[in-house]
């Protein structure tokens, strides 16, 4: 197993954004979300899958996502999450903020290329 240390303080803000982004196309359950993050980050952002759940709880409490019990692809009960309207707004806000930060960091880190 590759283990890249992922700093929690980066995750703190971004994990929420990642979850929202993954839910943008449609509802998914915790298991799917965890694997989606792993897969899409090419296994760089490798988190303990358990730590996803407090984040989901927090997002749901803020009203950005809503949940319901459903049946998964392989016919198992699972709790599904979907974006709410507020969540969609939050996602776009977070994305633009993220892009600003990335651009700023890049400018600092690679001034020669400018």
């Amino acid at each position, binding site marked *: 197993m590759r283990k890249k240390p992922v700093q929690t303080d980066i995750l703190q803000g971004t994990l929420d954004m990642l979850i929202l982004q993954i839910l943008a196309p449609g509802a998914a*359950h915790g298991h799917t979300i965890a694997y989606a993050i792993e897969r899409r980050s090419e296994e760089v952002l490798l988190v303990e899958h358990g730590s996803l759940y*407090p984040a989901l*709880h*927090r997002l749901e409490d803020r009203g950005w996502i809503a949940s319901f019990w459903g049946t998964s692809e*392989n016919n*198992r009960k*699972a709790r599904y999450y979907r974006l709410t309207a507020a969540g969609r707004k939050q996602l776009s806000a977070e994305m633009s903020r993220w892009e600003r930060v990335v651009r700023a960091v890049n400018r600092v880190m690679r001034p020669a290329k400018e």
Partner: protein
Amino acid sequence: MSWRRYIKRRWWDDERAREIAAYLENETADNIARGMPPAEAAAAARRKFGNPTRVREEIYRMNTIGWLESTWQDLRYGARTLRMSPGFGAVALVSLALGIGANTAIFQLLDAVRLRSLPVRNPQELAEVKIAGGNHGMGMNQQYGELTRPIWQAIRGKPQSFSEMFAWSANQRYVGQGSEMRSFRGLWVTGDFFRVLGIQPWRGRLLMPEDEGACPVTHAVVSYAYWQSHLAGREPGPGMKLVVNNDPVEIVGVAPPRFFGMAVGETFDIALPFCQPKEELSRDVFEVSVMGRLKPGRTLPRASAEMQALSLGIFEATIPPGRDPRSTETYKHFRLGVYPAAQGVSGIRETYDSSLWLLLGITGLVLLIACANLANLMLARASTRARELAVRLALGASRARLVRQLLAESALLAAAGAALGIALAHSLAGVLVWAISTEGSSVNLNTAMDWRVLLFAAGVAILTCGAFGVLPALRAAQAQPAAAMKAGGRGMTAGRERFSLQRAMVVTQVSVSLVLLVGALLFVRSFRNLMTFDPGMRESGITTGFLGFWQSNLPPQRWLEFKRELLDEIRATPGVLNAATTSNAPLLGASWEHGVRAGSAEGDAKFTWVSPGYFDTMGIPVVRGRGFNENDTAASTRVAIVNQTFVRRFLGGANPIGQTFRGMQEGDYPTTLYQIAGVIPDTQYNDLRGKTPPMTFEPASQLGPAPWTGLMIHSNVPPAAISATIKRRLAARHPDVIVELSDFQKDIRDQLTPERLMAMLSGSFGVLAAVLAMAGLYGVISFIVARRRNEIGIRLALGAERGQVVAMVMREAGRLLAIGIAAGAGLSLVAGRGARSLLFGLKPYDPLTLVAAAMLLGAIATAASFLPARRASRLDPMAALRDE
């Protein structure tokens, strides 16, 4: 952090647990699908997930409101520790419930008589018009009567700062006919009285402006209570008639149950409209109270100023006739003012106000003593729990958290004590109302809980909690863990300063309970003084009464003779030793005064019109000259018997017999020359207290005709029995005569109800305070002895006598007691000033009382500390040392 989540956190926890389980199932299934054996698949899933318990804990914490959670923990912990020592809990709870209950009960009464507004619409708008500074006793004055009806009519016609006005007056009158006649509490009102106050009828209709007209009155309204008790709750209307003062009156409606009139503590039976008699209204009778609603935005000062500007015109238009120029001038210069009236008027308020505030102070002090006791118990507990606290500190608990935990315990006790106290207060207040009610006048007070009472109880509880909880908690949390765990109650004598707080508490308790004992003794002695005070006349075996025969249609020239016949019949009743008529009974508050002039001396004197047997009946000797006899008639020389104060005041001590004085003209009473026929010693006049005024007695036969008279009867059978006999005999022969009789001595004592209340309550609180202080001293001395067990054991082992040990402990207690008593004596002198006006025949700094209270307290305290001292001296030194 949303509250909803906090409340639903259990549900959320379950929900998340199920979700986590679903994840693990999913992952395990996937792993199996990837080809892992089932056991390994489950383990791999758990690894992938991490620690499910930690995840659940994290979510649970997110759902938690920090301070609330820890407070709840503190409270539960407090409840547990209290349950572990039920004895302490019970003692604490009972003393708090008693203390808070007594305080709340007194406050409830104060609230009812002083703070509560009348149960009418917008009571805060009400204001009353009165003569600024009063009317100087001019004319006849009725209770709550501030103005005469002519003054009211003059005010009514003037432009006002009031949007609406009304007048009312309360008076006892008679309802029914013949021997069925009964007195009732009448409320006379202007026609729009009920409308202005916003009172809605319970049945029928209330009085309206049309009901106010020429006499006699034809319509009336009854109170709910009277309707229930006397009219059987029947529907009011044309069929319901009462005979009021000989005139038939139709009862048109019933007032709602909560409306009691304008006088707090009293009720009315029948409300009647004012009526205009054929003759002119008397300008001498101050019988009405004038009230109204201020126009919006009018302040009291502005309304007062406006009313003052109208005063001259009003008073000049209503000058009472036949007065001397001096008092006419005084009358013309009266000024009207406007005063707040949201709380109505109240005789009870005036009578009990200072007593109640004083009692509130007393119960406050009792609670303080109880708090000191509890604080001591808490301190003692804290020192036995020192180890536990030290361990907690050592394990990293913050001091603030420890203080909070200890305070939670106090808060629990205070809250429970307050809850019990409020329940107790309700019954106590009921008992108090009962205690101030007398047969003649029952007190009707609304002592229902209101926000003020609840706020007061809560405030008292918080203060209490602070008083007994904060210091011990702070002290306990200051423990040095290392030292506490090392010492741990082993071996050494505890340092003196460790007990300094307990000592201070005991000194406080002793001094405060001395103050309360001094107060109790003062009030009990004052009451005893009043009860045994000799007013200079016979009290026991006397029946006082009233005869009225205005319904008998006798011509006025027969009245005097008829009175004599009635008196003779009473005197002929078996058991009656003597009887006499009088215009007013002594010692019961009635007063009759005229201006007099003897030579150059001028002033006021009391007048009483009595029949010849009066002085014999009342056991008052005539020391010079003669008493009245049958030769003093309407036609003979006007004579008077005066008291010694009169002789000193008006005659300069010269031989008074045969001298004359002149009664000044006033209203219906023309100026008259009286010749002094006899002298009696000084007696009290209309009150047990107070100095004897100049008094004169005149023959009843020389008073103008009146169809009524007062009575004094001396009998050798109890007043209750003789009253029944006389009433029966008179009712048989003269059904038209109203006969009211009562026990003179009982009536006098009923007037001492405020003093009796003070004596009773301050006495019980004094005893309670002494008991609490004793318990406190006992506890602290026991505690100190227990902590010094080893030291005392060593002393005994080294050969100390048991007597020496007792003396050592007693010296300790004696020092505390001495400081406490010295401080208490000083405090009593200061506090005594507040009680000055309530004492009779005593000074507030009565040395005898102070010494007696100090000795009493000293004796009790010595007994309380002797027990632990003796226990200390009985220690088995070996056992004490082996305990190590």
